[in-house]
């Protein structure tokens, strides 16, 4: 049934059932966009469970998308510099909080298709998180380095946490900011080589626990879907830093030490991302830094149990929600390719060439389809993850991140 609804490459070319309805949406959105009116009026009440946004990094705009018919509903403009932008969602999945490179934090109403609040909270930012209870939005900043916490309702500043790790030195750039159970935020200090846990029980007075000397230049981090473990990848040395959030008193442990010892790493043309949790069974899949490999970790022992040779330097290593497949995209010069790994056999079972500069992939909540942004082709493509057929293609202006609303209900996203 889903297949029938989604066969058309675009609303205009499809004669599948429901095409008329999709056409209507398309025309409505287009007409409203032309009229300069960003509001798209849904015919009657509408849920948000199949909505999402695509970041148009160059234009500073978003495309509001829906995944039931794979169409664009509206274009939302005026969000500033969206290079490396990311987003989280309110607990009712109605609002997206978009973190821009220029320090802009924008609250976007998906049902109205417009920005409802916006603050420029720093000179240079990298991402953010929403608290377990949904009341706080935290942003990790490069300049000035630290984390700022805002009221999710009003975007009023609630707490400011400068990442001062050593007296006399400028505050560290902050990366890998995630939410964790217990209304905590966890983040890493790029310059400081530390992991900090902020307990937001009293939002105005965060309780900070510092873990020092976790390794050189943590570049990004992730938290397990159960909120149990936080892992930071290290750029400055081989290895990763692991923090057990059930037992933070045990401190940070190094895993995969020296996974590339004795080998000359390749230049890293794009910093990998650790997002979501590429886990299948007890296996965890992470990108190797400066190597054409995906590393496989056993979650019981945290030891490396395999390396999968892939087409280039991995940027995103993402598990399909059912954990059966791992999808990987790459840095230059291999960024036109996507490879699919079978989580059981650890073999690369398929390769796609979506086009020049594949930047991001986002699975639909149950994993039957995946959205892929192809920056230099100005397109977002949707693939069937079983057949690998392209089932939709949507124009977008230099698209990068894709964020679907089911993130609202997932720890660490």
């Amino acid at each position, binding site marked *: 049934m889903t297949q029938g609804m989604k066969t058309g490459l675009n609303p205009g070319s499809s004669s599948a059932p429901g095409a008329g309805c999709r056409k209507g949406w398309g025309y409505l959105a287009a007409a409203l966009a032309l009229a300069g009116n960003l509001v798209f009026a849904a015919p009657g009440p509408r849920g948000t469970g199949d909505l999402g946004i695509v970041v148009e990094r160059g234009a500073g705009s978003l495309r509001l998308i829906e995944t039931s018919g794979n169409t664009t509903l509206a274009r939302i403009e005026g969000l500033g510099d969206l*290079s490396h932008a990311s987003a989280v969602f309110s607990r009712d999945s109605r609002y997206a909080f978009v973190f821009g*490179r*220029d320090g802009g934090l924008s609250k976007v109403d998906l049902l109205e298709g417009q920005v409802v609040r916006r603050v420029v909270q720093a000179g*240079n930012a990298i991402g953010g998180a929403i608290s377990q209870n949904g009341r706080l939005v935290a942003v990790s900043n490069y300049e000035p380095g630290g984390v700022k916490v805002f009221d999710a309702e009003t975007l009023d500043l609630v707490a400011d946490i400068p990442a001062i790790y050593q007296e006399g030195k400028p505050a560290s750039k902050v990366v890998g900011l995630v939410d964790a159970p217990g209304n905590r935020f966890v983040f890493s200090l790029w310059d400081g080589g530390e992991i900090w846990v902020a307990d937001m029980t009293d939002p105005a007075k965060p309780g900070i626990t510092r873990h020092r000397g976790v390794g050189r230049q943590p570049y990004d981090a992730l938290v397990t879907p159960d909120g149990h473990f936080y892992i930071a990848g290290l750029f400055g040395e081989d290895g990763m830093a692991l923090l057990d959030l059930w037992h933070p008193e045990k401190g940070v442990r190094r895993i995969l030490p020296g996974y590339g010892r004795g080998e000359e790493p390749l230049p890293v043309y794009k910093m990998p991302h650790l997002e979501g949790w590429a886990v299948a069974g007890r296996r965890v899949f992470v990108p190797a830094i400066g190597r054409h490999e995906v590393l496989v970790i056993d979650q019981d022992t945290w030891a490396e149990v395999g390396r999968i040779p892939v087409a280039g330097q991995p940027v995103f290593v993402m598990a399909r929600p059912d954990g059966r497949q791992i999808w990987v995209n790459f840095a*230059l010069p291999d960024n036109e390719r996507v490879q699919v790994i079978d989580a059981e056999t650890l073999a690369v079972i398929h390769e796609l060439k979506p086009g020049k500069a594949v930047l991001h992939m986002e699975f639909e909540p149950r994993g039957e389809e995946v959205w892929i942004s192809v920056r230099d082709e100005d397109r977002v493509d949707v693939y069937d993850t079983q057949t690998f057929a392209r089932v939709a293609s949507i124009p977008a202006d230099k698209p990068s991140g894709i964020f679907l609303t089911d993130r609202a209900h997932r720890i660490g996203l």
Partner: protein
Amino acid sequence: MPLGLNKVIGWTAGIGAVLVILSGASLAALAARPLVPDPPGIASGVSEDRAAALRHFLTQDCGSCHGLTLGGGLGPPLRRELMVDKPVPYLAYTIMNGLHGTAMPPWSAFLTPEEGEWLARELKGMNP
């Protein structure tokens, strides 16, 4: 670095003062020029098509770390006014060879030496 910038500003102001005696039109022409004049006699060796591709590369790929508007990110900002006291050969060398101990990789696998220099000049606003 601020010292270097001040120097150039002082230098420019000095020239400006001398030129006050010249006509308004000449002065306007001077103002439109970049702070640091082109070194004479360097042919860019980069075609127009390639220049467009290099601009795209600068915005999108350098922009991954330095920001789409070159306002900085994991890498430092590369705004034009910050490039004033950075010589073209230094910038070109850094682009081609990277900076050891930082996240800046060498880009020589993607660029010819002429293209590295073209990008360095682009950062300084020296390309036509």
